[in-house]
C-alpha cells in the first residue's frame, strides 16, 4: 500500500537530511505510528506521501503508484484517495461543520445531492450528530478535530494520514479521537499517524516506527513509545 525505498530528503539550506536513507513498507489496513522528537523527520514522511515535496533520492509508492515520478496534473486525482488531518484542524471558520465536510466533496465535483446524502452519515459516524450546523468556533477542540476527520474520511479514502492529530487536545479528548481513528482503521482504511504523544502510543499498542535524526531506529509491531 505504502512503500518508501531508500528515501533521502534534504531541504534546501538544511545542514543535514530530514530523512536519511529511509525504507519502510506499510500494508493495506495497517495502523502505524511514526514517533520521534521534533525535527526528527516524521512530518516529512506525510509531506512525501501527499506529494507536497519530492525526495532527493529514493522511491515513494502509494497505492502501487510511484509518487516521485507522478506528473503534477495527476496529483489532484491522486490526493482524492488520501484523507488527511492535522494538529491545527484546518477548518474553514466561516462554514458550519456540515459545510466544511460538504466543501471537500463539492470541490472535487460531487453534486449537492451526494453531499446531502453522505455528509450527515459521516458526521454521525464521527459522533457529531446534531451539531451539523455549528461553526468551528462554536465547537470544542475535540469536536473540531472530529469535523476534520469527517472531512478526511467522507470521500472513503484508502489511506488516512494524521499529522499530530491530538497535539492540541487534552488527554481525554485525545483518547476519543484515537478511538475514532481506530474505528476508521477497522473499515479497512490504512492509517498513518505521526505523533509524539507517548500515552496514546502506549495505549493503542499498534505498530511503531521510531525516527531519530532522519533515520529509522526502531520498527516494532504492537510497540510502545519506549
Amino acid at each position: 500500500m505504502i512503500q518508501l525505498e531508500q528515501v533521502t530528503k534534504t531541504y534546501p539550506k538544511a545542514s543535514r537530511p530530514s530523512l536519511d536513507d529511509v525504507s519502510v513498507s506499510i500494508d493495506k489496513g495497517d495502523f502505524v505510528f511514526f514517533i520521534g522528537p521534533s525535527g526528527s523527520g516524521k512530518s516529512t514522511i506525510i509531506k512525501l506521501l501527499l506529494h507536497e515535496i519530492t525526495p532527493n533520492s529514493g522511491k515513494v509508492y502509494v497505492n502501487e503508484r510511484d509518487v516521485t515520478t507522478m506528473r503534477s496534473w495527476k496529483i489532484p486525482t491522486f490526493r482524492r484517495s488520501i484523507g488527511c488531518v492535522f494538529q491545527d484542524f484546518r477548518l474553514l471558520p466561516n462554514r458550519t461543520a456540515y459545510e466544511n465536510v460538504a466543501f471537500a466533496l463539492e470541490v472535487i465535483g460531487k453534486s449537492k445531492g451526494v453531499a446531502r446524502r453522505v455528509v450527515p452519515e459521516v458526521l454521525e459516524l464521527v459522533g457529531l450528530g446534531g451539531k451539523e450546523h455549528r461553526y468551528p468556533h462554536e465547537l470544542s477542540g475535540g469536536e473540531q478535530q472530529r469535523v476534520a476527520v469527517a472531512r478526511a474520511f467522507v470521500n472513503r479514502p484508502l489511506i488516512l494520514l494524521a499529522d499530530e492529530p491530538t497535539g492540541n487536545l487534552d488527554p481525554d479528548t485525545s483518547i476519543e479521537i484515537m478511538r475514532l481513528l481506530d474505528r476508521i482503521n477497522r473499515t479497512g482504511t490504512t492509517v498513518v499517524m505521526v505523533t509524539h504523544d507517548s500515552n496514546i502510543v502506549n495505549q493503542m499498542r499498534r505498530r511503531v516506527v521510531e525516527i531519530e535524526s532522519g533515520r529509522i531506529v526502531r520498527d516494532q509491531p504492537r510497540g510502545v513509545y519506549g
Partner: protein
Amino acid sequence: MRAKYVLSEVVTGLWRNVTMTIAMMITMAVSLTMLGASMLVYKQVDRMQSFFYGKVEVSIFLKTDVTEAQRTSLQSDLKGDPLVQNVIYESRDTAWQRFKTQFKDAPDLVNATKPDSLPESFRVKLKNPEKFQAIYNKYNNRDGISEIVDQRKLLAKIFGIFNSMQNVALIVSIIQGVAALLLVANMIQIAAYSKRREVAVMKLVGASNWFIQAPFVLEAVFAGLVGAVLAFAALFVAKTFFLEGALKSLQTVFPPIPTGDVLLMLPILAGIGAAVNAIAGWITLRFYVRV
C-alpha cells in the same frame, strides 16, 4: 453546480477587493481606450490617404508676366501629356473668388489682399500621383512658370501629425497596459491570500488545478471585460460628442469616423482585455502565488 460555485466565487472575489477591482478596471479602460483610439486613427489615416490622394493635384503657378502664347502652349502640352489625367485652368479671378470664400471668417486678411495679387494656375490631376517628379522635371524649365507644387507633400505633413498622434496614443496605451497588468497580478495575490485557507483545503482534498484557479482567472477576465466596455463607451462618446459635436468644423479635413469602425472596437477591445488579463492572471497564479 460547479459552474455556479465558480461564478459565486468570482462575484465575492470582486466584491472583497472592490476598490482594487475599480482601480484595475479604470486603468484597463484607459489603456484600452488609447489602444482603440490608436487603431481608429490608423484606419482613419488609411481611409483619408486614399480619399485625398484620389483628389490630389499638382499646382502649376504662372508668373504674373506670363504671355498668352506661353499659357496656351503649356495648356495644350499638359492636355496631351500621357501622365496627365485632366487639367483645369484657374484664372486670377477664380483664385480670388476661392480665396474670399475660404477666408470669409478673416475679413482683414481679405481686405489686405488685392484681387490681382493671387497667381493664375493650372490644376493638374495626374494619372498616377506618384509621378510628380517626372512632371516637375518636364515643365520646371519652361518660361512663364513660377512654381510647381505637389499637394501630396502638404498632405504628407498632415498625415505625419496624425501618425504621431497615433503613436502617442499607442505609447500611453502600453504604459497604462503595464500598470493594468501589475494591478491584475496584485489583485490576484490579494485574492489568493484572502482565500488561502480554502485553497489549502481544496489542494488537500484533491480539487483539480483548473477548479482552484478558475475563479481567480475569471475575476481578472471579468475586470478586463468591464474595462473594455468602459473603453468602448469612452470612444463612442468621444466620437459623437467631441468629433461630431464640438469639433464638427474640422470635418472638412478630418472625415467622420464611421460608426461601424467604433462598434467593431467593442469585440476587439473586449477580446484583447479578456485575453491579456487571463494570461496575466494565470501566470501570476502559476509562477508567483503557486496556487
